[in-house]
């Protein structure tokens, strides 16, 4: 690792003023917190939007301002914000930024200036997106998939300025994600410390690394579709817009292909699922291993499963388009690849469970969230097997079954990991513990509450309750019991939503008043817990970079007194340790 040797000689300029330290910061830890706070803020906006939608569905007419347009705008913004501006930004920009350099023993990202730009572009994209709430016509109401022609056809809510701001915001976000992504990938490849081989990296780093590779290769597809749609909307081209007669008038467009947009969008959209899921897989592997005091089961298998999922995620996209119509052989191909991707995914679930097997399980708050993730991901994954088949998907595709499926698998499951990971790493970020009792309360209400929300939705889907509808009165096939269930779901959703205030209070309170954590409260072996200071100072490692002698999962090693061995402990140190313990035994 010639690079790392040199990195020790590099000057570490510590920022001195408030502005360079906290605002225009090039320190990966500060940028991570900036990313995380922005993402959480915009996520709260999306949470409120979902509450408004649920109020309309559960108690129709309870909100005076809720008309169909507002409902679709809320739905569109909720989906887009949650998937891209919250989850993607939080996992890559937040956790990726904070953990990659600390876990691989680097002083910072390799391109700190680019890293700073990445955050400011992200903030700009968020501001542009939020600005669309305040323009005439409001934000886009085209659904988060923005399918043309309706997304830019007059009559769709927000087809004026709203959709333009949405597309511009996406383009800016992609620039931000690319700048960040170049950093994460290059840092992992080039800036690992002495002894940190690729196969000694914690699975968190592997997950975020692979997700970043996916982001770098998949976001261009969204960029292409956004730019071409902007051309159609602003310059009158016909990339996606077909011949249309609108209010008796032929529109200026002709001959474009809406299906082309769908292919481009989902070529991004499916890897996006794994851009969110792979970091969650990685983080949860580390949580389970630490809190079960056991090495992760099948580490290499886990790594290769992450890589395999990443590769396969590029050849399954058209399973989102079964109802758009396609050649039956294509449908067969995409159904097959979709089922094949379940193999490495199931392998990971087995390995998590086998890690727990006969482990010394500590039911700490991070562990509770990790266990809840396994359950939730299992439920969401199994319904994915249903929907991956063309003949099952076609009748269920436009029902609440799909809403239940994707919220379980890529809404609730990753968010549970986000919470677990925040409870786990908060002591490293702030030097203080989050309150345990509040954490447990937050966990149980969130976990049981999300099941109260999404479990019944599977049943509503089987009943045939269509998704995307603004109101469900007056349909004979929807029984009264479904309306009652909708009211129940809404109550559960509001309770879960309000409970998140508990979490925010816990974050705020514990940052200043929490119990001091010490450097390594969970007695974890990976590198980020071995920093000389907590929270880590600028440059992370003091005068000398750490040297890594082992993988990140040496827990409960037979014959060693301490139940974990930090990555920085060499065999030589180990002999010292065991000799000491022998003497003590004598």
């Amino acid at each position: 690792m010639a690079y790392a040797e040199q990195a020790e000689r590099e000057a570490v300029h510590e920022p001195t003023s408030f502005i360079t330290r906290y605002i225009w910061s090039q320190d990966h830890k500060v940028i991570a917190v900036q990313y995380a706070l922005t993402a959480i803020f915009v996520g709260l906006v999306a949470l409120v939007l979902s509450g408004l939608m649920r109020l309309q569905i559960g108690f129709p007419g309870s909100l005076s301002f809720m008309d169909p347009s507002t409902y679709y705008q809320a739905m569109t913004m909720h989906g887009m914000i949650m998937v891209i501006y919250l989850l993607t930004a939080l996992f890559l920009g937040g956790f990726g930024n904070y953990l990659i350099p600390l876990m691989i023993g680097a002083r910072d990202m390799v391109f700190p200036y680019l890293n700073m730009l990445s955050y400011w572009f992200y903030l700009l994209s968020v501001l542009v997106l939020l600005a669309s709430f305040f323009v005439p016509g409001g934000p886009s109401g085209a659904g988060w998939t923005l399918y043309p022609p309706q997304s830019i056809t007059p009559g769709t809510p927000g087809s004026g300025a709203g959709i333009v701001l949405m597309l511009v915001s996406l383009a800016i976000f992609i620039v931000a994600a690319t700048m960040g992504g170049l950093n994460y990938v290059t840092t992992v490849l080039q800036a690992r410390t002495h002894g940190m081989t690729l196969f000694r990296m914690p699975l968190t780093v592997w997950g975020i690394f692979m997700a970043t590779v996916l982001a770098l290769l998949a976001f261009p597809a969204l960029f292409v579709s956004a730019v071409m749609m902007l051309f159609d909307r602003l310059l009158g081209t016909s990339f996606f817009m077909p011949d249309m007669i609108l209010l008796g008038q032929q529109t200026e467009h002709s001959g474009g292909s809406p299906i082309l947009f769908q292919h481009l969008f989902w070529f991004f959209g499916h890897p996006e699922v794994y851009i969110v899921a792979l970091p969650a897989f990685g983080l949860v592997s580390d949580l389970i291993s630490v809190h079960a005091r056991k090495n992760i089961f099948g580490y290499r298998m886990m790594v290769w499963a992450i890589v395999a999922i990443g590769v396969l995620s590029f050849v399954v996209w058209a399973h989102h388009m079964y109802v758009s119509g396609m050649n039956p052989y294509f449908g067969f191909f995409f159904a097959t690849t979709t089922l094949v991707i379940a193999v490495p995914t199931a392998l990971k679930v087995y390995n998590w469970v086998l890690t727990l097997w006969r482990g010394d399980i500590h039911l700490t708050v991070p562990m509770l969230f990790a266990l809840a993730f396994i359950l939730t991901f299992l439920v969401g994954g199994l319904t994915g097997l249903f929907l991956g088949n063309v003949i099952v998907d076609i009748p269920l595709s436009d029902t609440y079954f799909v809403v239940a499926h994707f919220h379980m698998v890529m809404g609730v499951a990753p968010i549970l990991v986000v919470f677990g990971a925040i409870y786990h790493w908060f002591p490293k970020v702030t030097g203080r513990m989050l309150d345990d009792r509040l954490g447990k309360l937050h966990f149980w209400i969130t976990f049981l509450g999300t099941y109260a929300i999404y479990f019944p939705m599977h049943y509503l889907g089987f009943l045939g309750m269509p998704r995307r509808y603004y109101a469900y009165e007056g349909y004979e096939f929807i029984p009264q019991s479904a309306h009652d269930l909708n009211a129940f779901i809404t109550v559960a959703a509001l309770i879960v939503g309000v409970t998140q205030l508990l979490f925010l209070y816990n974050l705020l309170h514990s940052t200043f008043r929490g119990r001091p954590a010490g450097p390594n409260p969970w007695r974890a072996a990976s590198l980020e817990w071995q920093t000389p200071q907590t929270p880590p100072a600028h440059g992370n490692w003091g005068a000398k970079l750490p040297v890594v002698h082992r993988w990140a999962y040496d827990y409960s090693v037979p014959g060693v007194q301490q139940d974990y061995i930090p990555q920085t402990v060499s065999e030589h140190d180990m002999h010292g340790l065991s000799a000491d313990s022998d003497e003590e035994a004598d």
Partner: protein
Amino acid sequence: MNTLPLQNDPDSVRAEYGDRRRAAVAGMRIFLAVITMLFLLFLIAFIARSQSGDWRPLTDPAAPLSRPLLLWINTLVLGLGSLALQWARVAMRYGQRGESLIGFGLGGLCALGFIVGQLAAWWQLERWGYGVASTPSSSFFFLLTGLHGFHLLGGLLAWAVTLGGYWRGWALARLQLRVELCAIYWHYLLALWLLLFLALTSSPQTYRTIAALCGLG
């Protein structure tokens, strides 16, 4: 507290930049992979769209790209820019600061010339009645050349900063790294332009063959 002594002896500066070079070149390669993906997807969209009924090729006898003389000149200019930057890069390796400055300056000027030439090509298309929204093929012409030009403008930004570095007397190793990155980027954008030029001026039969091979036909 964590500020380490900055080593000022030339050997260590060279070694430090040697390692930064590896990271920077790796980062640049990954970035080029991302751009490749971007334009690959654009080209797939282009091929798919070219198979619809309303496609009027720009290479028709009466269309503006039947004899794309201007585009050939632009290609030549961009190629010269790439050569000039390669010259600057090699001169840097031999420590020839002045010589590399000439090559480096020429490289950027050629790129500027290329952009002006592309704008002239746009203007020609407009004048022929092939504006951006007139036919799908001209929409793609504006889209692809425009995005390629944007990438070149980004490169010119880095070029301008580096040119300032010559003035401000940056250390040779630091300057060398920047020149090297610019040269790599210029070569890449030249290759990309050649591909786009080829794609935009191919015959409908070629599109049909490619589309059939991709299963888009």
